[in-house]
């Protein structure tokens, strides 16, 4: 090849990289939502002279073009693969742990004592006025410490738990931390998702029995039913690498007998498990139909006892295990419920009174626990 042809060839290669993607980008459609990133993508901004002069039009337009760029998911995959090649053990807030465990990163500097004070202060009236039991579930980074990358930093939730235990007292504090630590060799967290598994929830249930002194229901750990073997959860989405999927399992004992579930006072069904979710990306939504502001469960057990749960999504796989102990279970997710909490509780409370349970994972508790 002559020098001249050589130069032309170099130009052609680089120019075609730019031109191919430019043209391809001009012919793609806009997307609203990115499933892999689990977020809304920027849309074409409306033009106005004012926004143009302030500079916000052009910066919004850049966000729009970048978010909608052709093959965005594949580009992100290339970038992630490069990070893996560079031996990075943390990608997009997810640790690539041992044994294929993806573990969500919570940095110590992101959580302050002030936050702990504030959330515990909100917990206090529930303990004093409603005698609420407190179940704060540690996240995987605090339990599966041996699976974290060497020396990886994580927010130590033990101080929060100790203070919560002091506040609630022995009769009300459920020591999930100890229970999960004891079983940390088992599959108590999903490898690809930030939730605990039904087995993890079962050990939480045992801790709850210990605190409340209730008679255990004989769940059979050996005979859990598997409903899905292709679960790739939120953490796999964040890194978007090919990963070995999880299985979703549940205790078949919790699907026995006539059950009535009412979602948000509107939709009634006869099961706490929604199989439709198994065909979507959000398979964890199988448990209690994902998240609702208010759920009422009439269990098959005629016990004349009522439970009122304040919770995050960790509770969705736990609540089924509580059914043998109550006839009626109310479930409130404070992230979606806008009314006055104590008014609602008074309305729900039968004459005989009810048990109250606060169930959050520690991080959601610090970030989200709030009510009017």
């Amino acid at each position, binding site marked *: 090849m002559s020098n001249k042809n050589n130069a032309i060839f170099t*130009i052609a290669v*680089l120019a075609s990289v730019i031109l191919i993607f430019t043209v391809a980008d001009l012919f793609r459609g806009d997307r609203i939502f990115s499933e892999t990133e689990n977020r809304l993508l920027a849309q074409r901004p409306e033009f106005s002279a004012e926004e143009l002069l302030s500079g916000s039009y*052009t910066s919004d337009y850049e966000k729009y073009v970048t978010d909608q760029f052709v093959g965005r998911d594949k580009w992100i995959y290339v970038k992630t693969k490069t990070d893996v090649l560079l031996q990075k053990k943390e990608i997009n807030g997810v640790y690539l742990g041992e044994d294929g465990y993806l573990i969500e990163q919570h940095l110590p500097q992101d959580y302050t004592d002030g936050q702990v004070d504030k959330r515990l202060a909100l917990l206090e009236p529930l303990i004093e006025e409603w005698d609420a039991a407190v179940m704060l579930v540690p996240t995987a980074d605090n339990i599966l410490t041996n699976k974290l990358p060497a*020396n990886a930093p994580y927010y130590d939730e033990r101080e929060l738990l100790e203070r919560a235990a002091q506040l609630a007292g022995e009769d009300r504090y459920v020591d999930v931390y100890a229970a999960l630590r004891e079983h940390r060799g088992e599959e108590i967290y999903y490898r690809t998702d930030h939730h605990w598994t039904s087995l993890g929830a079962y050990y939480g249930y045992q801790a709850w029995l210990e605190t409340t002194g209730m008679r255990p229901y004989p769940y059979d750990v050996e005979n859990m039913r598997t409903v899905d073997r292709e679960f790739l959860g939120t953490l796999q989405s964040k890194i978007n690498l090919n990963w070995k999927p999880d299985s979703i399992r549940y205790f078949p004992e919790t699907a026995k007998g006539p059950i009535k579930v009412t979602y948000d006072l509107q939709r009634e069904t006869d099961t706490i498990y929604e199989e439709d979710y198994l065909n979507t990306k959000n398979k964890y939504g199988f448990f209690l139909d994902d998240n609702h502001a208010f759920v009422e469960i009439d269990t098959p057990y005629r016990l004349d006892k009522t439970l009122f749960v304040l919770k995050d999504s960790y509770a969705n796989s736990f609540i089924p295990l509580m059914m043998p102990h109550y006839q009626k279970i109310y479930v409130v997710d404070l992230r979606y419920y806008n009314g006055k909490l104590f008014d609602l509780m008074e309305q729900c409370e039968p004459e005989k009174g009810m048990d109250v349970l606060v169930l959050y994972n520690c991080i959601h508790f610090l970030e989200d626990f709030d009510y009017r």
Partner: protein
Amino acid sequence: MVFSSVIFLFRFLPIFLICYFAAPRRMKNIVLFLGSLFFYAWGEPIYILLMLFSTVVDYVNGRLIERCRGSRRAVIPLAASVVINVAVLCLFKYSDFLIGTVNDLAGTSLPLLQLPLPIGISFYTFQTMSYTIDVYRGDAKVQKNILDFGVYVSMFPQLIAGPIVKYRDVSEQLHDRPVDLYAVSHGAGRFCIGLAKKVLLANSIGMLWTDVSGRNYQEISMLTAWLGIIAFAFQIYFDFSGYSDMAIGLGEILGFHFPENFRYPYISASVTEFWRRWHISLGSWFREYVYIPLGGNRKGLPRQLVNILLVWMLTGIWHGAGWNFLFWGLWFAFLLVLEKLFLGKVLSWLPRIAGILYTLVTVLIGWVLFAVETPSGILGYIRAMAGVGGLIDGNALYLAGEYYILLLIALAASTPIPRMLAERLQQKKTSPCIAVCRLGEKVIPAALLVLAIAGIVEGSYNPFLYFRF
């Protein structure tokens, strides 16, 4: 608009280049001027007027100097040019710093102006001043065509992050420049390498500095502190020299030859040498238009030392209106004076590696002044580097594990070794070597381009570091 963005690579650049190469030779400057205005206005829709004002003012001053040629009155338009440029720079860049200082010293509470800093203002005011000064001295011919002059000031490749191109370096090319295939192909490759330096190295390693700098310096170990500041040193080098590579490459594509701006600064064996290798266009600007007019080294040692002090204070605050930048400049002035007095001699007796280590340590301390900004933070950080918070902890080991490969790549890339290996390969005339070279010339820039695009689209961390320049 910045180069490392989807909007530049896949909207502005292809459209602009198609127009530019489709245009007949005499129309190329119009295309370049309009393209550059669009490029600048995209990020600074209002301040484009300021740039145009600066252009017109110095165009007129240049013409006036030419008209007064031979008479003493020529100094008036020259003075006007310098005063107006410096005043514009002071107003937009330094007014709040000065007001704040007055408030602190006199206990007054004068309101701050809070003007946002126009991007690139420090670059283009310096460029236009070099023009009027050169015309006054007779080092450059006056430019009568306002379009050609407008192209010089606004040219998008070096507009927002340098290099600072002196007018006389490009005056011929402004008027007329041929399209040269070899230059286009070379420039395109250079652009890709610059883009990769910015996106793949600077941005990735910058995350390490962002992590460390956000911590409480009382609690970080010595290793963490060193890892952090080394990461910053790599970040600013690859970011800045990457921008320069992109500017020089784009210039070549358009037919310009811009001066080199960086020559492997981290292999310098003295601070004096470092400043001959780092941001060369700024150093040579200050040398030519401040240091030498002040007398340079021709008026005795005491005067030379004062001149060094002055020039490096200016160099310091050129990088940002803040005390830390002033101290950063003074730190180098101090080292340069030491080297002039005796340290330079001592270093010349020692093996080169000792000089390199001394330079790296002093430059890293300099980067602490540059990057940390508050006095208490700077002291805390330097104490951490000295080992007050312990030598090594788990956190440092974690960070080292996360970044060691990237740090090694950055280390290799900041030395001339990769280039020397490539050149050695090129000199071998055997046919497999030639084939490897030919292939590498195309595949490496293209591969870097693709990886850089991935980094840009993912876009989790892509800062513009020169917003204070």
